[in-house]
Protein backbone atom coordinates (compact mmCIF):
# COMPACT_ATOMS: atom_id res chain seq x y z
CA UNK A 1 0.00 0.00 0.00
CA UNK A 2 1.15 3.46 -0.80
CA UNK A 3 2.47 4.97 2.46
CA UNK A 4 0.68 8.31 2.36
CA UNK A 5 2.35 10.77 4.70
CA UNK A 6 -0.94 12.28 5.75
CA UNK A 7 -2.11 8.92 7.02
CA UNK A 8 1.19 8.10 8.69
CA UNK A 9 1.13 11.42 10.49
CA UNK A 10 -2.51 10.93 11.35
CA UNK A 11 -2.08 7.57 12.99
CA UNK A 12 1.19 8.31 14.74
CA UNK A 13 0.35 11.79 15.97
CA UNK A 14 -3.12 10.95 17.15
CA UNK A 15 -1.77 7.72 18.60
CA UNK A 16 0.82 9.57 20.66
CA UNK A 17 -1.78 12.19 21.60
CA UNK A 18 -4.23 9.59 22.87
CA UNK A 19 -1.43 7.80 24.64
CA UNK A 20 -0.45 10.96 26.44
CA UNK A 21 -4.06 11.73 27.20
CA UNK A 22 -4.49 8.28 28.67
CA UNK A 23 -1.41 8.55 30.89
CA UNK A 24 -2.21 12.04 32.09
CA UNK A 25 -5.77 11.00 32.79
CA UNK A 26 -4.62 7.93 34.60
CA UNK A 27 -2.05 9.95 36.47
CA UNK A 28 -4.50 12.55 37.58
CA UNK A 29 -7.20 10.04 38.42
CA UNK A 30 -4.84 7.93 40.45
CA UNK A 31 -3.19 10.95 42.02
CA UNK A 32 0.20 10.23 40.52
CA UNK A 33 0.54 13.73 39.11
CA UNK A 34 -0.08 17.00 40.80
CA UNK A 35 -3.22 18.86 39.73
CA UNK A 36 -1.34 21.97 38.83
CA UNK A 37 -3.17 24.00 36.21
CA UNK A 38 0.04 24.58 34.25
CA UNK A 39 0.69 20.88 33.88
CA UNK A 40 -2.93 20.24 33.05
CA UNK A 41 -2.99 23.02 30.51
CA UNK A 42 0.24 22.08 28.83
CA UNK A 43 -0.10 18.34 29.06
CA UNK A 44 -3.67 18.07 27.89
CA UNK A 45 -2.95 20.85 25.39
CA UNK A 46 -0.17 18.83 23.85
CA UNK A 47 -2.19 15.63 23.88
CA UNK A 48 -5.24 17.20 22.28
CA UNK A 49 -3.11 19.15 19.81
CA UNK A 50 -1.50 15.96 18.68
CA UNK A 51 -4.87 14.30 18.37
CA UNK A 52 -6.24 17.25 16.46
CA UNK A 53 -3.17 17.51 14.30
CA UNK A 54 -3.56 13.87 13.46
CA UNK A 55 -7.22 14.23 12.63
CA UNK A 56 -6.54 17.31 10.52
CA UNK A 57 -3.72 15.52 8.78
CA UNK A 58 -6.10 12.70 7.96
CA UNK A 59 -8.30 15.15 6.13
CA UNK A 60 -5.38 16.01 3.89
CA UNK A 61 -5.81 12.50 2.60
CA UNK A 62 -9.37 13.30 1.57
CA UNK A 63 -10.30 14.39 -1.89
CA UNK A 64 -13.08 16.55 -0.48
CA UNK A 65 -11.96 17.64 3.00
CA UNK A 66 -14.77 20.18 3.17
CA UNK A 67 -17.17 17.29 3.36
CA UNK A 68 -15.27 15.53 6.13
CA UNK A 69 -18.17 15.99 8.53
CA UNK A 70 -20.13 13.49 6.55
CA UNK A 71 -17.80 10.81 7.79
CA UNK A 72 -19.56 10.68 11.16
CA UNK A 73 -22.75 9.31 9.79
CA UNK A 74 -22.04 5.64 9.16
CA UNK A 75 -20.91 4.44 12.56
CA UNK A 76 -23.23 1.49 12.22
CA UNK A 77 -21.02 -0.24 9.71
CA UNK A 78 -17.87 1.72 9.07
CA UNK A 79 -14.85 1.59 11.38
CA UNK A 80 -13.63 4.82 9.86
CA UNK A 81 -16.88 6.47 10.77
CA UNK A 82 -16.74 4.93 14.25
CA UNK A 83 -13.26 6.19 14.65
CA UNK A 84 -14.39 9.67 13.75
CA UNK A 85 -17.32 9.51 16.13
CA UNK A 86 -15.17 8.12 18.92
CA UNK A 87 -12.52 10.74 18.32
CA UNK A 88 -15.01 13.54 18.51
CA UNK A 89 -16.73 11.97 21.47
CA UNK A 90 -13.43 11.73 23.32
CA UNK A 91 -13.06 15.49 23.12
CA UNK A 92 -15.95 15.81 25.56
CA UNK A 93 -14.46 14.04 28.58
CA UNK A 94 -11.05 15.33 27.59
CA UNK A 95 -12.47 18.85 27.57
CA UNK A 96 -14.25 18.33 30.87
CA UNK A 97 -11.07 16.95 32.30
CA UNK A 98 -9.08 19.91 31.06
CA UNK A 99 -11.55 22.46 32.40
CA UNK A 100 -11.72 20.78 35.72
CA UNK A 101 -7.97 20.42 35.95
CA UNK A 102 -7.05 23.91 34.85
CA UNK A 103 -9.96 25.97 36.20
CA UNK A 104 -11.14 23.77 38.94
CA UNK A 105 -14.01 21.37 39.11
CA UNK A 106 -17.54 22.66 38.66
CA UNK A 107 -18.86 19.34 39.81
CA UNK A 108 -17.34 17.11 42.39
CA UNK A 109 -15.43 14.21 40.91
CA UNK A 110 -15.40 15.91 37.59
CA UNK A 111 -11.72 15.37 36.97
CA UNK A 112 -11.66 11.77 37.97
CA UNK A 113 -14.80 10.83 36.09
CA UNK A 114 -13.76 12.75 33.03
CA UNK A 115 -10.32 11.18 33.19
CA UNK A 116 -11.72 7.66 33.16
CA UNK A 117 -14.08 8.56 30.38
CA UNK A 118 -11.25 10.15 28.39
CA UNK A 119 -9.22 6.98 28.81
CA UNK A 120 -12.11 4.89 27.63
CA UNK A 121 -12.76 7.22 24.68
CA UNK A 122 -9.13 7.18 23.70
CA UNK A 123 -8.90 3.42 23.86
CA UNK A 124 -12.03 3.05 21.82
CA UNK A 125 -10.76 5.52 19.25
CA UNK A 126 -7.44 3.75 19.01
CA UNK A 127 -9.18 0.43 18.71
CA UNK A 128 -11.32 1.83 15.90
CA UNK A 129 -8.27 3.15 14.11
CA UNK A 130 -6.72 -0.26 14.27
CA UNK A 131 -9.95 -1.82 13.13
CA UNK A 132 -10.10 0.37 10.04
CA UNK A 133 -7.09 -1.55 8.85
CA UNK A 134 -7.55 -4.92 10.42
CA UNK A 135 -11.06 -5.26 9.07
CA UNK A 136 -9.87 -5.12 5.47
CA UNK A 137 -9.79 -8.69 4.27
CA UNK A 138 -8.22 -7.50 1.05
CA UNK A 139 -4.91 -6.71 2.72
CA UNK A 140 -3.42 -9.68 4.44
CA UNK A 141 -0.84 -7.73 6.43
CA UNK A 142 -3.58 -5.65 7.96
CA UNK A 143 -6.23 -8.25 8.31
CA UNK A 144 -4.56 -9.47 11.52
CA UNK A 145 -6.02 -9.59 15.03
CA UNK A 146 -2.83 -8.02 16.38
CA UNK A 147 -3.28 -4.78 14.50
CA UNK A 148 -5.56 -2.94 16.97
CA UNK A 149 -3.58 -4.10 20.03
CA UNK A 150 -0.36 -2.94 18.39
CA UNK A 151 -1.95 0.39 17.63
CA UNK A 152 -2.94 0.75 21.27
CA UNK A 153 0.35 -0.45 22.66
CA UNK A 154 2.35 1.88 20.46
CA UNK A 155 0.05 4.78 21.28
CA UNK A 156 0.58 4.09 24.95
CA UNK A 157 4.30 3.71 24.41
CA UNK A 158 4.79 6.90 22.47
CA UNK A 159 2.33 8.77 24.69
CA UNK A 160 4.23 7.49 27.68
CA UNK A 161 7.49 8.80 26.31
CA UNK A 162 5.87 12.17 25.93
CA UNK A 163 4.69 12.00 29.50
CA UNK A 164 8.19 11.16 30.64
CA UNK A 165 9.49 14.27 28.98
CA UNK A 166 6.63 16.42 30.12
CA UNK A 167 6.33 15.61 33.80
CA UNK A 168 9.87 16.64 34.83
CA UNK A 169 9.29 20.04 33.22
CA UNK A 170 6.65 20.62 35.85
CA UNK A 171 8.72 19.12 38.53
CA UNK A 172 6.56 16.06 38.69
CA UNK A 173 7.80 12.59 39.22
CA UNK A 174 8.05 10.75 35.94
CA UNK A 175 9.19 7.39 37.14
CA UNK A 176 5.74 5.85 37.15
CA UNK A 177 5.34 7.12 33.58
CA UNK A 178 8.69 5.68 32.66
CA UNK A 179 7.60 2.36 34.11
CA UNK A 180 4.31 2.53 32.23
CA UNK A 181 6.15 3.35 29.04
CA UNK A 182 8.56 0.51 29.52
CA UNK A 183 5.68 -1.86 29.97
CA UNK A 184 3.83 -0.46 26.94
CA UNK A 185 6.89 -0.57 24.76
CA UNK A 186 7.81 -4.06 25.79
CA UNK A 187 4.27 -5.22 25.13
CA UNK A 188 4.30 -3.27 21.87
CA UNK A 189 7.58 -4.83 20.90
CA UNK A 190 6.36 -8.33 21.64
CA UNK A 191 3.13 -7.73 19.78
CA UNK A 192 4.87 -6.15 16.86
CA UNK A 193 7.32 -9.04 16.59
CA UNK A 194 4.45 -11.44 16.68
CA UNK A 195 2.74 -9.36 14.07
CA UNK A 196 5.75 -9.47 11.81
CA UNK A 197 6.08 -13.20 12.27
CA UNK A 198 2.41 -13.54 11.52
CA UNK A 199 2.53 -11.59 8.28
CA UNK A 200 5.77 -13.23 7.23
CA UNK A 201 4.39 -16.69 7.70
CA UNK A 202 0.88 -15.99 6.49
CA UNK A 203 0.29 -18.04 3.40
CA UNK A 204 -0.28 -15.98 0.30
CA UNK A 205 -3.47 -17.70 -0.63
CA UNK A 206 -4.90 -15.14 -3.00
CA UNK A 207 -3.42 -16.02 -6.34
CA UNK A 208 -3.78 -14.65 -9.82
CA UNK A 209 -5.14 -18.05 -10.72
CA UNK A 210 -7.97 -17.66 -8.23
CA UNK A 211 -8.50 -14.00 -8.98
CA UNK A 212 -9.06 -14.70 -12.65
CA UNK A 213 -10.74 -18.03 -12.18
CA UNK A 214 -8.33 -19.45 -14.73
CA UNK A 215 -6.27 -21.60 -12.41
CA UNK A 216 -7.63 -24.82 -13.86
CA UNK A 217 -5.79 -23.91 -17.06
CA UNK A 218 -2.41 -23.32 -15.45
CA UNK A 219 -0.30 -20.52 -14.07
CA UNK A 220 -1.62 -17.07 -14.87
CA UNK A 221 0.95 -14.52 -16.03
CA UNK A 222 0.20 -11.01 -17.18
CA UNK A 223 1.02 -10.49 -20.84
CA UNK A 224 -0.10 -6.96 -21.51
CA UNK A 225 -1.30 -4.65 -18.76
CA UNK A 226 -4.53 -2.72 -19.27
CA UNK A 227 -2.52 0.50 -19.43
CA UNK A 228 1.21 0.86 -19.82
CA UNK A 229 1.62 3.55 -17.15
CA UNK A 230 0.54 2.80 -13.58
CA UNK A 231 -3.03 3.76 -12.77
CA UNK A 232 -4.64 4.76 -9.50
CA UNK A 233 -5.06 1.21 -8.33
CA UNK A 234 -1.40 0.41 -8.86
CA UNK A 235 -0.14 3.70 -7.52
CA UNK A 236 -2.24 3.29 -4.39
CA UNK A 237 -2.20 -0.43 -3.90
CA UNK A 238 0.70 -1.68 -5.93
CA UNK A 239 3.32 0.06 -3.82
CA UNK A 240 6.06 -2.37 -3.05
CA UNK A 241 9.06 -2.19 -0.81
CA UNK A 242 11.87 -4.60 -1.44
CA UNK A 243 12.03 -7.33 1.17
CA UNK A 244 15.69 -6.54 1.94
CA UNK A 245 14.82 -2.97 2.44
CA UNK A 246 11.88 -3.79 4.65
CA UNK A 247 13.92 -6.04 6.91
CA UNK A 248 16.46 -3.29 7.34
CA UNK A 249 13.76 -0.81 8.16
CA UNK A 250 12.22 -3.19 10.67
CA UNK A 251 15.54 -3.20 12.48
CA UNK A 252 15.63 0.57 12.39
CA UNK A 253 12.11 0.68 13.74
CA UNK A 254 12.90 -1.79 16.50
CA UNK A 255 16.03 0.13 17.41
CA UNK A 256 14.47 3.56 17.47
CA UNK A 257 11.02 2.75 18.70
CA UNK A 258 11.82 0.07 21.27
CA UNK A 259 15.48 -0.52 22.12
CA UNK A 260 16.69 3.01 22.31
CA UNK A 261 13.76 4.43 24.32
CA UNK A 262 13.76 1.41 26.61
CA UNK A 263 17.42 1.90 27.34
CA UNK A 264 16.91 5.56 27.98
CA UNK A 265 13.89 4.89 30.17
CA UNK A 266 15.71 2.40 32.31
CA UNK A 267 18.42 4.95 32.74
CA UNK A 268 15.73 7.42 33.62
CA UNK A 269 14.61 5.26 36.51
CA UNK A 270 17.95 5.91 38.15
CA UNK A 271 18.24 9.08 40.25
CA UNK A 272 19.54 11.78 37.97
CA UNK A 273 19.57 15.55 37.96
CA UNK A 274 16.38 17.00 36.48
CA UNK A 275 18.22 18.45 33.54
CA UNK A 276 19.72 15.10 32.62
CA UNK A 277 16.36 13.42 33.11
CA UNK A 278 14.76 15.84 30.75
CA UNK A 279 17.45 15.42 28.15
CA UNK A 280 17.16 11.67 28.29
CA UNK A 281 13.41 11.85 28.09
CA UNK A 282 13.52 14.16 25.10
CA UNK A 283 16.02 11.92 23.42
CA UNK A 284 13.68 8.98 24.04
CA UNK A 285 10.78 10.93 22.58
CA UNK A 286 12.73 11.84 19.46
CA UNK A 287 13.91 8.29 19.00
CA UNK A 288 10.43 6.96 19.56
CA UNK A 289 8.83 9.43 17.17
CA UNK A 290 11.20 8.57 14.36
CA UNK A 291 10.83 4.91 15.24
CA UNK A 292 7.07 4.98 15.14
CA UNK A 293 7.10 6.89 11.83
CA UNK A 294 9.30 4.18 10.35
CA UNK A 295 7.09 1.50 11.86
CA UNK A 296 3.97 3.12 10.46
CA UNK A 297 5.58 3.65 7.06
CA UNK A 298 6.40 -0.03 7.00
CA UNK A 299 2.91 -0.91 8.12
CA UNK A 300 1.71 0.55 4.82
CA UNK A 301 4.61 -0.24 2.59
CA UNK A 302 4.77 -3.90 3.58
CA UNK A 303 1.06 -4.41 3.14
CA UNK A 304 0.12 -5.97 -0.12
CA UNK A 305 -3.35 -5.60 -1.53
CA UNK A 306 -4.88 -8.60 -3.20
CA UNK A 307 -5.58 -6.59 -6.33
CA UNK A 308 -1.92 -6.69 -7.30
CA UNK A 309 -2.32 -10.24 -8.46
CA UNK A 310 -4.36 -8.97 -11.38
CA UNK A 311 -1.47 -6.78 -12.40
CA UNK A 312 1.56 -8.81 -11.43
CA UNK A 313 0.38 -12.36 -11.24
CA UNK A 314 1.61 -14.53 -8.42
CA UNK A 315 -0.01 -14.45 -5.00
CA UNK A 316 -0.81 -11.91 -2.33
Amino acid at each position, binding site marked *: *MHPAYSVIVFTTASGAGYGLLIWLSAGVALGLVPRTPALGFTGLGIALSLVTLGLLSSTL*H*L*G*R*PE*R*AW*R*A*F*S*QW*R*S*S*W*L*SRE*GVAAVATYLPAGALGLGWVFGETMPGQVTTAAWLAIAGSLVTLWCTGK*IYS*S*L*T*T*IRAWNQPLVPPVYIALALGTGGLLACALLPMFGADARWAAAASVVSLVVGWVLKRRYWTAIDSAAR*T*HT*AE*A*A*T*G*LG*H*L*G*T*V*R*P*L*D*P*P*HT*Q*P*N*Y*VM*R*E*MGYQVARRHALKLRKVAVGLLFLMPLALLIWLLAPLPAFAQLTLAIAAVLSGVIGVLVERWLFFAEAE*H*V*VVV*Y*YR*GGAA
Partner: protein
Amino acid sequence: MTSLPEASAKKLGLVIDLDTCVGCHACATSCKEWNSNGYSAPLTDDDAHGGDPHGTWLNRVHSYEVGDGAESRTVNFPRSCLHCETPACVTVCPTGASYKRASDGIVLVNPDTCIGCKLCSWACPYGAREYDHGDGTMKKCTLCVDRIYNETMAPEDRVPACVRACPTGARHFGDLGDPQSAVSILVAERAGFDLLPEFGYNPVNKYLPPRARKDREVTPRAIEAPLRAGPGSNADRFFAWVDKALSR
Protein backbone atom coordinates in the same frame (compact mmCIF):
# COMPACT_ATOMS: atom_id res chain seq x y z
CA MET B 1 -26.74 4.16 3.95
CA THR B 2 -23.63 2.27 4.16
CA SER B 3 -25.73 -0.58 5.35
CA LEU B 4 -26.54 -2.99 2.60
CA PRO B 5 -30.13 -3.24 1.49
CA GLU B 6 -32.13 -6.38 1.90
CA ALA B 7 -31.12 -8.70 -0.90
CA SER B 8 -32.74 -7.29 -3.99
CA ALA B 9 -34.77 -9.50 -6.25
CA LYS B 10 -33.29 -7.83 -9.26
CA LYS B 11 -29.57 -8.24 -9.66
CA LEU B 12 -28.43 -6.34 -12.69
CA GLY B 13 -24.97 -7.16 -13.87
CA LEU B 14 -22.68 -8.20 -16.66
CA VAL B 15 -21.63 -11.56 -17.96
CA ILE B 16 -18.26 -11.53 -19.66
CA ASP B 17 -17.29 -14.29 -22.01
CA LEU B 18 -13.56 -15.00 -21.74
CA ASP B 19 -13.86 -17.41 -24.63
CA THR B 20 -14.83 -14.64 -27.01
CA CYS B 21 -13.07 -11.54 -25.74
CA VAL B 22 -10.26 -10.57 -28.09
CA GLY B 23 -8.95 -7.84 -25.80
CA CYS B 24 -9.78 -4.99 -28.13
CA HIS B 25 -10.39 -2.38 -25.38
CA ALA B 26 -13.57 -1.16 -27.06
CA CYS B 27 -15.47 -1.69 -23.84
CA ALA B 28 -12.82 0.25 -21.93
CA THR B 29 -12.76 3.31 -24.15
CA SER B 30 -16.49 3.43 -24.78
CA CYS B 31 -16.98 3.26 -21.03
CA LYS B 32 -14.51 6.08 -20.60
CA GLU B 33 -16.26 8.03 -23.32
CA TRP B 34 -19.78 7.63 -22.01
CA ASN B 35 -18.87 8.23 -18.40
CA SER B 36 -16.58 11.18 -19.06
CA ASN B 37 -19.69 13.15 -19.72
CA GLY B 38 -22.40 11.20 -17.97
CA TYR B 39 -23.26 10.51 -14.37
CA SER B 40 -19.63 9.88 -13.50
CA ALA B 41 -18.27 13.02 -15.08
CA PRO B 42 -15.53 13.97 -15.05
CA LEU B 43 -13.13 11.07 -15.43
CA THR B 44 -9.95 13.00 -15.07
CA ASP B 45 -6.84 12.34 -17.16
CA ASP B 46 -3.46 13.33 -15.81
CA ASP B 47 -0.58 14.35 -18.01
CA ALA B 48 -2.65 13.38 -21.01
CA HIS B 49 0.02 14.35 -23.55
CA GLY B 50 3.02 14.12 -21.27
CA GLY B 51 5.48 11.69 -19.81
CA ASP B 52 3.17 9.85 -17.44
CA PRO B 53 -0.27 9.64 -18.98
CA HIS B 54 -2.84 8.06 -16.70
CA GLY B 55 -6.39 8.67 -15.72
CA THR B 56 -9.58 7.37 -14.25
CA TRP B 57 -11.15 4.42 -16.04
CA LEU B 58 -14.04 2.32 -14.89
CA ASN B 59 -13.22 -0.69 -16.99
CA ARG B 60 -9.83 -2.07 -17.91
CA VAL B 61 -8.78 -4.97 -20.05
CA HIS B 62 -5.94 -7.25 -19.03
CA SER B 63 -4.25 -9.78 -21.20
CA TYR B 64 -2.88 -12.95 -19.62
CA GLU B 65 -1.05 -16.03 -20.62
CA VAL B 66 -2.18 -19.12 -18.80
CA GLY B 67 -0.30 -22.38 -18.57
CA ASP B 68 2.97 -23.41 -20.09
CA GLY B 69 4.25 -24.56 -23.44
CA ALA B 70 1.84 -26.29 -25.75
CA GLU B 71 -0.82 -26.21 -23.06
CA SER B 72 -0.61 -22.45 -22.66
CA ARG B 73 -3.20 -20.05 -23.93
CA THR B 74 -3.82 -16.35 -24.09
CA VAL B 75 -6.85 -14.98 -22.28
CA ASN B 76 -8.07 -11.41 -22.41
CA PHE B 77 -9.75 -10.28 -19.27
CA PRO B 78 -11.89 -7.17 -18.91
CA ARG B 79 -12.36 -6.05 -15.35
CA SER B 80 -14.86 -3.62 -13.87
CA CYS B 81 -17.07 -3.47 -10.79
CA LEU B 82 -18.87 -6.74 -10.19
CA HIS B 83 -21.76 -5.15 -8.29
CA CYS B 84 -21.25 -7.56 -5.42
CA GLU B 85 -24.20 -8.51 -3.28
CA THR B 86 -22.37 -8.17 0.02
CA PRO B 87 -19.38 -5.98 -0.66
CA ALA B 88 -17.27 -4.36 2.00
CA CYS B 89 -16.69 -1.41 -0.31
CA VAL B 90 -20.13 -0.27 0.76
CA THR B 91 -19.96 -1.08 4.45
CA VAL B 92 -16.59 0.55 5.04
CA CYS B 93 -17.71 3.86 3.61
CA PRO B 94 -17.84 6.41 6.42
CA THR B 95 -20.17 8.78 4.62
CA GLY B 96 -22.75 6.57 3.03
CA ALA B 97 -21.69 7.81 -0.35
CA SER B 98 -21.01 4.27 -1.36
CA TYR B 99 -24.24 2.36 -1.58
CA LYS B 100 -26.00 -0.51 -3.18
CA ARG B 101 -29.32 0.22 -4.78
CA ALA B 102 -32.17 -1.68 -3.24
CA SER B 103 -34.12 -1.86 -6.47
CA ASP B 104 -31.60 -3.42 -8.81
CA GLY B 105 -28.44 -4.06 -6.83
CA ILE B 106 -26.24 -1.57 -8.64
CA VAL B 107 -23.38 -0.40 -6.45
CA LEU B 108 -22.86 3.33 -6.80
CA VAL B 109 -20.98 6.23 -5.29
CA ASN B 110 -22.92 9.36 -4.57
CA PRO B 111 -20.71 12.02 -6.12
CA ASP B 112 -22.25 14.70 -3.89
CA THR B 113 -21.35 13.11 -0.58
CA CYS B 114 -18.17 11.16 -1.24
CA ILE B 115 -15.24 12.64 0.68
CA GLY B 116 -12.62 10.81 -1.31
CA CYS B 117 -11.20 8.88 1.65
CA LYS B 118 -10.36 5.97 -0.67
CA LEU B 119 -11.24 3.39 1.95
CA CYS B 120 -13.73 1.69 -0.32
CA SER B 121 -11.04 1.17 -2.94
CA TRP B 122 -8.96 -0.56 -0.30
CA ALA B 123 -11.87 -2.78 0.54
CA CYS B 124 -12.47 -3.91 -3.02
CA PRO B 125 -10.43 -6.98 -3.92
CA TYR B 126 -11.15 -6.50 -7.59
CA GLY B 127 -9.52 -3.13 -8.14
CA ALA B 128 -12.80 -1.83 -9.41
CA ARG B 129 -12.77 1.57 -7.76
CA GLU B 130 -10.68 4.40 -9.04
CA TYR B 131 -10.09 7.64 -7.30
CA ASP B 132 -10.40 10.73 -9.47
CA HIS B 133 -7.89 13.38 -8.40
CA GLY B 134 -9.52 15.97 -10.53
CA ASP B 135 -12.83 15.54 -8.81
CA GLY B 136 -11.63 14.39 -5.40
CA THR B 137 -14.16 11.59 -5.38
CA MET B 138 -14.23 7.87 -5.92
CA LYS B 139 -15.40 6.58 -9.29
CA LYS B 140 -16.58 3.19 -10.33
CA CYS B 141 -18.63 1.39 -12.89
CA THR B 142 -22.20 2.57 -12.61
CA LEU B 143 -23.53 -0.21 -14.78
CA CYS B 144 -24.43 2.80 -16.89
CA VAL B 145 -27.35 3.54 -14.64
CA ASP B 146 -27.89 6.68 -16.70
CA ARG B 147 -28.36 4.60 -19.85
CA ILE B 148 -30.21 1.49 -18.84
CA TYR B 149 -33.33 3.33 -17.72
CA ASN B 150 -32.89 6.28 -20.06
CA GLU B 151 -36.19 7.08 -21.67
CA THR B 152 -34.61 9.45 -24.15
CA MET B 153 -32.87 6.49 -25.76
CA ALA B 154 -34.21 3.84 -28.06
CA PRO B 155 -35.06 0.75 -25.99
CA GLU B 156 -32.32 -1.32 -27.63
CA ASP B 157 -29.79 1.31 -26.61
CA ARG B 158 -30.70 1.05 -22.95
CA VAL B 159 -27.73 -1.14 -22.20
CA PRO B 160 -24.33 -0.24 -20.78
CA ALA B 161 -22.02 1.57 -23.18
CA CYS B 162 -19.48 -1.24 -22.99
CA VAL B 163 -22.04 -3.84 -23.94
CA ARG B 164 -23.32 -1.80 -26.82
CA ALA B 165 -19.78 -1.29 -28.07
CA CYS B 166 -18.32 -4.77 -27.72
CA PRO B 167 -17.67 -5.92 -31.28
CA THR B 168 -17.43 -9.62 -30.49
CA GLY B 169 -20.49 -9.80 -28.32
CA ALA B 170 -18.44 -10.97 -25.36
CA ARG B 171 -20.36 -8.81 -22.92
CA HIS B 172 -23.90 -9.51 -21.82
CA PHE B 173 -26.11 -7.42 -19.59
CA GLY B 174 -29.17 -8.51 -17.71
CA ASP B 175 -30.84 -9.54 -14.50
CA LEU B 176 -28.86 -12.26 -12.82
CA GLY B 177 -31.47 -12.49 -10.11
CA ASP B 178 -33.95 -13.92 -12.56
CA PRO B 179 -33.06 -17.53 -13.29
CA GLN B 180 -35.03 -17.33 -16.52
CA SER B 181 -33.16 -14.33 -17.91
CA ALA B 182 -30.89 -14.78 -20.92
CA VAL B 183 -27.84 -13.99 -18.85
CA SER B 184 -28.74 -16.47 -16.12
CA ILE B 185 -29.30 -19.17 -18.68
CA LEU B 186 -25.97 -18.36 -20.29
CA VAL B 187 -24.23 -18.58 -16.93
CA ALA B 188 -25.86 -21.90 -16.22
CA GLU B 189 -25.01 -23.33 -19.63
CA ARG B 190 -21.45 -22.18 -19.71
CA ALA B 191 -20.56 -22.70 -16.05
CA GLY B 192 -20.15 -19.02 -15.35
CA PHE B 193 -18.06 -18.36 -12.26
CA ASP B 194 -17.37 -15.77 -9.58
CA LEU B 195 -14.05 -14.06 -9.10
CA LEU B 196 -12.44 -14.58 -5.68
CA PRO B 197 -15.51 -16.12 -4.09
CA GLU B 198 -13.57 -16.64 -0.85
CA PHE B 199 -14.00 -12.98 -0.02
CA GLY B 200 -17.67 -13.57 0.34
CA TYR B 201 -18.62 -10.43 -1.53
CA ASN B 202 -20.88 -12.46 -3.82
CA PRO B 203 -20.23 -10.75 -7.12
CA VAL B 204 -23.23 -10.39 -9.36
CA ASN B 205 -21.15 -10.19 -12.53
CA LYS B 206 -20.10 -13.55 -13.85
CA TYR B 207 -17.31 -14.68 -16.11
CA LEU B 208 -17.68 -17.44 -18.66
CA PRO B 209 -14.57 -19.61 -18.85
CA PRO B 210 -12.62 -20.16 -22.06
CA ARG B 211 -13.93 -23.24 -23.80
CA ALA B 212 -11.75 -26.28 -24.32
CA ARG B 213 -9.61 -25.87 -27.42
CA LYS B 214 -10.33 -28.00 -30.43
CA ASP B 215 -6.77 -28.59 -31.51
CA ARG B 216 -6.88 -32.30 -31.09
CA GLU B 217 -10.21 -33.01 -32.61
CA VAL B 218 -10.45 -36.25 -34.46
CA THR B 219 -12.39 -36.08 -37.66
CA PRO B 220 -13.01 -39.45 -39.25
CA ARG B 221 -9.68 -40.79 -40.32
CA ALA B 222 -11.46 -42.51 -43.19
CA ILE B 223 -10.64 -39.42 -45.19
CA GLU B 224 -7.08 -40.58 -45.16
CA ALA B 225 -7.79 -43.95 -46.69
CA PRO B 226 -6.95 -43.03 -50.27
CA LEU B 227 -3.71 -41.60 -49.01
CA ARG B 228 -2.38 -45.00 -48.32
CA ALA B 229 -4.06 -47.15 -50.88
CA GLY B 230 -2.72 -48.26 -54.23
CA PRO B 231 0.46 -48.55 -56.20
CA GLY B 232 2.36 -45.87 -58.10
CA SER B 233 3.48 -42.41 -57.21
CA ASN B 234 1.27 -39.88 -55.51
CA ALA B 235 0.61 -38.26 -58.85
CA ASP B 236 -0.20 -41.54 -60.60
CA ARG B 237 -2.76 -42.42 -58.02
CA PHE B 238 -4.20 -38.96 -57.97
CA PHE B 239 -4.49 -38.75 -61.75
CA ALA B 240 -6.12 -42.14 -61.90
CA TRP B 241 -8.68 -40.96 -59.40
CA VAL B 242 -9.24 -37.71 -61.28
CA ASP B 243 -9.90 -39.60 -64.50
CA LYS B 244 -12.25 -41.98 -62.83
CA ALA B 245 -14.07 -39.26 -60.98
CA LEU B 246 -14.51 -37.13 -64.07
CA SER B 247 -15.88 -39.95 -66.16
CA ARG B 248 -18.55 -40.78 -63.61
